[in-house]
């Protein structure tokens, strides 16, 4: 995930200072991890260094002085390029669940019980996300973001269900090699 491009995209819609940018990011991507202020300021400085953003002006509004930033023409071109670039479908997803399963088999632990507990944990998270997205007044950004997580958890679950059904064969294969 490129925080740099996401912040640049937010700047492209309107110039902002760091504090405001963090707030807009967290509102726009409510399921993402909230950004730390330090990360926002560091990213802004790098964007300026690379010629993708520039200072729009400073204002104090009675409080501490704040520097607002805007996107440069080069920044706008970079955004267009990045947004159109295909995200690589990862053929070898890092799969902690699979790794744990194989280690369970290798050490003679109860792999079936592990899978069942993992499935229950996935389902619990799916129930939480479903409650979030169906709460009255939830905006579409939150719904779609929860849907993305739900769909991926569902894919994990399907894989775990199929794997649980094939555990005997997997155990024989792992133990034979």
């Amino acid at each position, binding site marked *: 995930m490129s925080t740099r491009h996401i912040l640049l995209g937010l700047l492209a819609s309107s110039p902002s200072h760091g504090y405001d940018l963090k707030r807009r990011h967290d509102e726009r991507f409510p399921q993402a991890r909230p950004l730390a202020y330090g990360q926002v300021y560091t990213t802004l400085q790098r964007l300026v260094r690379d010629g993708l953003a520039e200072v729009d002006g400073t204002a104090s509004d009675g409080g501490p002085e704040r520097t607002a930033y805007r996107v440069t023409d080069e920044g706008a071109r970079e955004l267009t390029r990045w947004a159109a670039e295909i995200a690589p479908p990862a053929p070898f997803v890092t799969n902690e669940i699979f790794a744990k399963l194989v280690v369970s088999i290798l050490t003679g632990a109860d792999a079936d019980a592990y899978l069942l507990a993992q499935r*229950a944990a996935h389902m619990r998270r*799916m129930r939480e996300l479903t409650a979030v997205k169906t709460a009255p007044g939830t905006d579409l950004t939150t719904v779609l973001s929860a849907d993305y997580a739900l769909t991926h958890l569902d894919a994990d679950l399907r894989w775990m269900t199929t794997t649980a*059904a094939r555990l005997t064969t997997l155990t024989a294969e792992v133990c034979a090699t």
Partner: protein
Amino acid sequence: MTNGETRGPLLAATGLVKAHGRTQALRGADVELRAGEILAVTGPSGSGKSTLLHCLAGIVRPDAGSVTYDQQRLDRLPEKRRSELRRTDFGVVFQFGQLIPELTALDNVALPLMLSGADRAEARARAGEWLERFEASGQAERRPGEMSGGQAQRAALARALVTGPKVVFADEPTGALDSLASEQLMAALAQTARESGTAVLLVTHDAQVAAYADREVEVRDGAVAALEVTA
């Protein structure tokens, strides 16, 4: 609700056994449905989920074991009494809504009320309110063949809930729907059930549908296992 809790589960099955010919569908299944809860029953195809639902809804009689609904042995009641209960206390939704093709959506929804003795005008008025609640008012005068799958399922849901049942049995209610229609139907079902305190027994093989439930059990080889981790 408090009464329901002190009296135990609203619906409970113990040691259910049921065979279809030589196929053993249930081999000692136990399950409880509490008043007002949404319980998902999941499991692979052919695991016995639907047979379990049919036994709990009093549609089929188990070969052995008991089904207790509201302190009565449902499996021992004569068919006439069971069918009366299905009309008054239970609502049912299947994968394909099984609406009557010759009737409009409005008349389909009004039908259970009329079977329970309501006059036609009153039944139609209440049916109209339920269709509106499920945002299907536009379909009121359409017949099932003229509706999309999602619209027909909304009408089927309205028909299941129109009598104010204590339990709704939903057997793969989203099985024939695309993901958006499925989500909208489940949101409508869950919200209505929670508002009215209706218990729902939801049979599904879809985890995203099961995630609307409060709790989940899994049927495997004709028996029921809790899919819960007790922390």
